[in-house]
């Protein structure tokens, strides 16, 4: 139409590399989280409160705490991750950044993976770091605490990854909380069983490498499959909004 047309269709090869785009998404989420510190502290506070209330509410006896400490810590960690899941996409959905994320030329599942990893670093990792202190409070011995931390280190990313599917699926709903829990908790149960099972085995002095290998398999499975499912769920949720 015009002789001096200067704007041309660019080839897709000229778009930004995937790694660079993932880093940008990750950094933005971390930056936003540090500007809104109560969202960062909430899961930690919840975790600490639940763990502290157990000895008060059930029994402060050393024998009971030694036996159930690992289970208490695992359940509390699981619930606090669950509590934080709704934020994973909700804010981005409300302010429109999620739309822009979906319209980036890079594959969506990798960008979602970057977001999920940021979520884990901001919720799961602090829980793992807090665990030794709370473990000692529950009279767990050093070996159990070490194993517990290791299982949480492998297990919490799985929780974030599986949770991202639920968070993406329930995004379009106004009160997603209950449905999200119902969808996600059944998928969390195997991780919980193997997580606490590993610590119990370690406390009895048994070999835990088999358990840890299984948990590692969970992590690999979640890492490779969950981002695809979340990306697909996001497309559905945004398509209906």
């Amino acid at each position, binding site marked *: *139409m*015009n002789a001096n047309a200067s*704007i*041309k269709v*660019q080839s897709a090869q000229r778009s*930004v590399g995937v790694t660079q785009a993932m880093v940008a998404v990750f950094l933005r989420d971390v930056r936003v989280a540090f500007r809104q510190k109560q969202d960062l502290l909430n899961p930690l506070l919840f975790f600490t409160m639940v763990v502290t209330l157990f000895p008060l509410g059930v029994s402060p006896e050393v024998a009971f705490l030694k036996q159930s400490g690992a289970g208490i810590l695992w359940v509390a960690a699981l619930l606090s991750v669950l509590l934080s899941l709704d934020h994973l996409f909700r804010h981005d959905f409300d302010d429109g*950044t999620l739309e822009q994320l979906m*319209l980036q030329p890079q594959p969506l599942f990798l*960008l979602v993976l970057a977001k999920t990893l940021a979520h884990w670093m901001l919720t799961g990792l602090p829980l793992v770091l807090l665990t030794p202190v709370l473990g000692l409070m529950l009279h767990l011995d050093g070996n159990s605490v070490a194993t517990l931390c290791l299982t949480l280190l492998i297990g919490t990313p799985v929780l974030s990854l599986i949770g991202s599917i639920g968070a993406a699926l329930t995004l379009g709903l106004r009160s997603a909380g209950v449905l999200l829990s119902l969808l996600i908790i059944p998928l969390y149960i195997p991780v919980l069983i193997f997580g606490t099972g590993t610590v119990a085995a370690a406390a009895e002095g048994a070999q835990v490498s088999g358990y840890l290998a299984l948990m590692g398999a969970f992590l690999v499975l979640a890492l490779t499959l969950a981002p695809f499912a979340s990306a697909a769920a996001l497309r559905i949720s945004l398509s209906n909004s």
Partner: protein
Amino acid sequence: MPEPLLQAVGLECERDERLLFQNLSFSILPGTVTRVEGPNGSGKTTLLRILAGLNDAWTGELNWCGQPRDRHRESYLRNMLYLGHRPGIKPLLTPLENLRALMAGRRPLDDDALLQALAGTGLSGFEQVPCRNLSAGQQRRVALARLLIADEPLWLLDEVFTAIDAAGVEAIESLLLQRAREGGAVVVTTHHNLDLPGMGRITLGGATER
């Protein structure tokens, strides 16, 4: 006639058991501004979201540069800029950080270029203020700053004049015209009384014409 950038053939969309449009066909040529018209609820935003690839609940054919769009998604997304109702601005980040994050996945620019774009939308002096402390119009201007540094040939702009003052509206209008002169294609929806010379129209909620 140049090859159309985007071509729709027999688009049909149903939403909440209501037929929004059917048998809708049009071509978006380079160097044109096209306005999507229609009353509230006639499906303007839905049409734009379909064109952008955000809404999958449609039937028909969408071609990008003569090829099926969904088979050339990466190329399409690289060459299309969509600004929706929700501006895509994080309230906790500053305008500069927001713009940097939005451009990072498309075409990273140095801060000088970003600051210049922000200044071009009248936001100089606000670069380091968190966006939640800015007015609605200023937040939209942060999103609009992308238009000043965009190299995408196809723009899909939904309600682009919302919360923008008279001087800003004039600036956007001349930007759209200049864009068309340079060979870009723009599709807009607006309730603002937009009438640019040579503007094409897609009318929803009735017959379709160009």
